[in-house]
């Protein structure tokens, strides 16, 4: 049974202070919508008060943290007198321990899902092993949230180390992993949640579970080619601009490209975000492009998330955060596509 604590706001802030002695503590920050802070969506906790955590997911996903834009993989020298010229050296890695406080269950679930294809990726794993995730369950959903339809829930705890639920002004913290325990053990100061609080937490969780649908299982049971050849793809593609707004804001889009950048005689090999919506993503060196048409690219984005990924790994590769729905310039709505796919016989 998980340990469950009940905290006042001040107790929680005390926890954060204690944590920031040994780790870097990040909190959500959307700033004024301008500047690097609003891009990364995270700021280092200033050591004062816990910022307000608005309902729904932050604009930019936790991906900005887990897949830095860009990530240096290697460095090299191009100096002709350097005996090691063009030899790839391991790039310096961030050694700090990080605690992310205030993310929503959907973003944490995205880390769990991305961890499936990235289970052997040293960069992702290195970062994940040094990161503790302290999430806030959602008592209020946005109109674009649909986590329950894709296997998640406002109380989902996948990959979370500590899950906090605000009940009547108090913070009920459920410790879910050893990493979470290590944080709480060292911080002290909080008593166990009352039986009443635990009962209320259970009630909220059960209520959320009732809504759960099993789109993932339904789609897995469908024949791949029937979905691939469905008639509605053309009409989705007609509107799409093939920009990167959806994939770049999506927490479960993890594709990257690799290039070398050289300044002076110092080079670095970086990986940076790429999008299956861009024609160049699938272009071969020969010039041939297997997904040369817009419809093929649009189809790939959805088929990857809703069919190929679940066929291979189990769950759907969408956490229902709704960012792509909100930010798509032309209102392409993955909920409609999901419905259309479920309707294919």
């Amino acid at each position, binding site marked *: 049974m998980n340990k469950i604590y009940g905290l006042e706001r001040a107790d929680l802030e005390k926890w954060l202070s204690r944590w920031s002695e040994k780790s870097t503590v990040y909190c959500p920050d959307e700033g004024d*919508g*301008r*500047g*690097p802070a*609003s*891009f990364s969506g995270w700021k280092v906790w200033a050591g004062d008060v816990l910022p307000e955590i608005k309902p*729904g997911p932050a*604009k*930019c996903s936790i991906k900005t943290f887990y897949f830095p*834009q*860009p990530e240096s993989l290697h460095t090299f020298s191009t100096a002709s007198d350097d005996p090691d010229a063009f030899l790839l050296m391991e790039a310096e890695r961030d050694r700090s321990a990080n605690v992310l406080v205030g993310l929503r269950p959907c973003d944490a679930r995205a880390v769990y899902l991305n961890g499936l294809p990235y289970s052997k990726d040293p960069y992702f794993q290195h970062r994940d092993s040094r990161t503790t995730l302290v999430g806030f369950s959602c008592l209020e959903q*946005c*109109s*674009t949230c649909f986590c329950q339809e894709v296997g998640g829930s406002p109380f989902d705890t996948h990959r979370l180390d500590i899950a906090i639920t605000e009940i009547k002004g108090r913070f009920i913290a459920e410790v879910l992993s050893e990493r979470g325990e290590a944080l709480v053990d060292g911080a002290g100061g909080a008593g166990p949640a009352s039986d009443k609080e635990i009962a209320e937490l259970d009630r909220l969780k059960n209520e959320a579970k009732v809504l759960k649908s099993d789109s993932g299982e339904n789609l897995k049971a469908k024949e791949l080619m029937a979905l691939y050849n469905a008639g509605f793809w053309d*009409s989705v593609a*007609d*509107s799409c*601009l*093939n*920009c*990167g*707004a959806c994939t*770049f*804001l999506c927490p479960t889009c993890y594709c990257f*490209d690799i*290039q070398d*950048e050289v300044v002076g005689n110092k080079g670095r090999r*970086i990986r*940076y*975000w790429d*999008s299956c919506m*861009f024609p*160049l993503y699938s272009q071969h060196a020969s010039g041939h492009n297997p997904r040369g048409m*817009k419809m093929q690219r649009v189809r790939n984005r959805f088929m990857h998330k809703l069919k190929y990924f679940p066929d291979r790994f189990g769950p759907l590769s969408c956490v229902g955060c709704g960012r792509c*729905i*909100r*930010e798509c*310039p*032309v*209102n*392409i*709505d993955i*909920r*409609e596509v999901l419905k259309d796919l479920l309707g294919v016989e």
Partner: protein
Amino acid sequence: MSQINSKITEEIRSKVKALLSAEEIAAFVGFIDGTLPMTARPFTARSPEDADRLVFNSFCVVNPAVYLPPLLKSLEPPRRPTDPLPEGPLPKVGILATGCWSRNISIQLQENQIARERVVVLGTGCRGMVDMRKVGSIIDGREIEKAYELDDRISVSGKGFSEEILLEDVLRDNCLTCICPNPVIMDHRVGGQVPDRRVDNRFPFVDEIESKSLDKRWEWFQNEISSCIRCYACRNVCPLCYCPTCFVDDSRPQWVGKSLDPADTSIFHILRAFHCAGRCTNCGSCETVCPMGINMRVLTSKLTKDVIDLYGTEAGVDSDAPLPLTTYSETDRQDFMV
């Protein structure tokens, strides 16, 4: 319901239905209602039934001209790049056009991206489109669950609030400075002519930035673009951007770095703006679609202002006027040369 826009909607539906039924056009580019409040989705109607879904309202913020060149191309019979166009008439496409949208169609014609005889323009006067961000700031960022439009107001509501907002308070900045609300090209009219807007200063934002010192201008620019995620929605939504491969996408040679180094992001924005010089119609699509709320239209507006000063022309307004930056004249101003 807005009486004016519902009447235009009716007229669009019946005209497009007739054109598609008579097979005069193979497809029509317009809008349908989106799935979120205050959104309209650009839509390609391909059958008479599709025509019944078309709408026109103050939320049609994407310039549909962007779809025109690729759509026309997709309707041509498949052939190798070097093969000549087949003989005989090719399928036509219909499109809805307000003032600025029609100016972009005019530029596509002048730049030989589309053929006039293959385009059927349904023109309508435009009273301006709504800026969602302005609405958002009026209602303090609360989530809108329902919205509908009246002739001069929009009504929005959500959890614990319901408000009526005057349209003129939430029109996009580019619409507030629009010089051409009525279409310049038109085969059929839907709705009435709208009165020209009174615009005292067309470039208030440009003036504001021009008045700053060089350092302050650079600071403004760097701050403005610092949250750009290089999603290229601004580029892809623009009807002027039709290069098969954009300079930012080339990797051999790599003209611009690919990730988020401020120098690279700056180069993208500066060059994108310059590629639109003398061609931008101030339709505002780029600025509207940016997920990060970046006001990159200030850059193209500055160039529009310069082109007016240098060449006295205005993109797409007069289809016979020479294109300022691709036409050489001995009387061109050259005082910027060193």
